[in-house]
């Protein structure tokens, strides 16, 4: 028996996202939109008609935080500075990677907040220690004298 290798569903060269893929990508972004890390998404096209989805950051600037492009059968994810974060031709991996990248972005933000918090705490501690040290020193000097008087 001969098996004829029929090609799988043809992917349109340019223009639009297939609905299933689009839903997958939007679902992947929904967590970030719900928790405020992203404000929404918009769609666009390149000069050659390759579709793009832009995930927009929070107000006031709404800068693009992730740009997902489909170049023929290749999916490319870039950040807002044009750095390529992911390139593959598997649409299943695309959704997984989108979620992963958004989580990583959130983790990076959390890490930056932690560093800032520790720096602030250290500064406050340094200042309060200096303030507290003085009365403590005074007390250690005065306490024996006060005790002698009693």
């Amino acid at each position: 028996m001969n098996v004829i290798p029929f090609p799988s569903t043809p992917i349109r060269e340019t223009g639009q996202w297939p609905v299933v893929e689009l839903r997958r990508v939007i679902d992947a972004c929904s967590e970030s939109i719900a928790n405020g890390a992203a404000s929404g998404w918009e769609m666009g096209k390149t000069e050659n008609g390759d579709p793009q989805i832009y995930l927009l950051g929070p107000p006031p600037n709404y800068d693009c935080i992730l740009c997902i492009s489909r170049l023929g059968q290749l999916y490319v994810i870039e950040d807002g500075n044009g750095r390529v974060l992911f390139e593959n031709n598997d649409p299943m991996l695309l959704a997984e990677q989108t979620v992963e990248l958004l989580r990583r972005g959130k983790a990076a933000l959390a890490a930056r907040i932690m560093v800032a918090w520790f720096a602030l705490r250290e500064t406050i501690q340094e200042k309060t220690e200096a303030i507290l040290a003085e009365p403590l020193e005074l007390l250690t000097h005065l306490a024996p004298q006060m005790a002698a008087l009693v």
Partner: protein
Amino acid sequence: MQFARADAQAKQMRKEAGAWLRELRTQAGLSQIELASRLGFKYYTFVSQVENGFGRVPTASMEAWARALGVDPSHFAKVLLSYYEPELYRLLYEVRT
């Protein structure tokens, strides 16, 4: 209300910056792919992202963009600043002491 207006303005200004960049590229006779290639990008999708008004030209690469488009880097940066940071641009270049 004030914030909503500022937000809408930021989006609109970035769109205008993108349109201006597209015009410069067209004047230079370059396609998005050719410009991306001159800038050393693997894909041309970032050029599209910026021209569609969703991304910004990073400050670190403004000079490279200007040279690739055949324009003066100082003028290029100044015009982009007027779109990306209009208040800063106003303070730097329009407010008189």
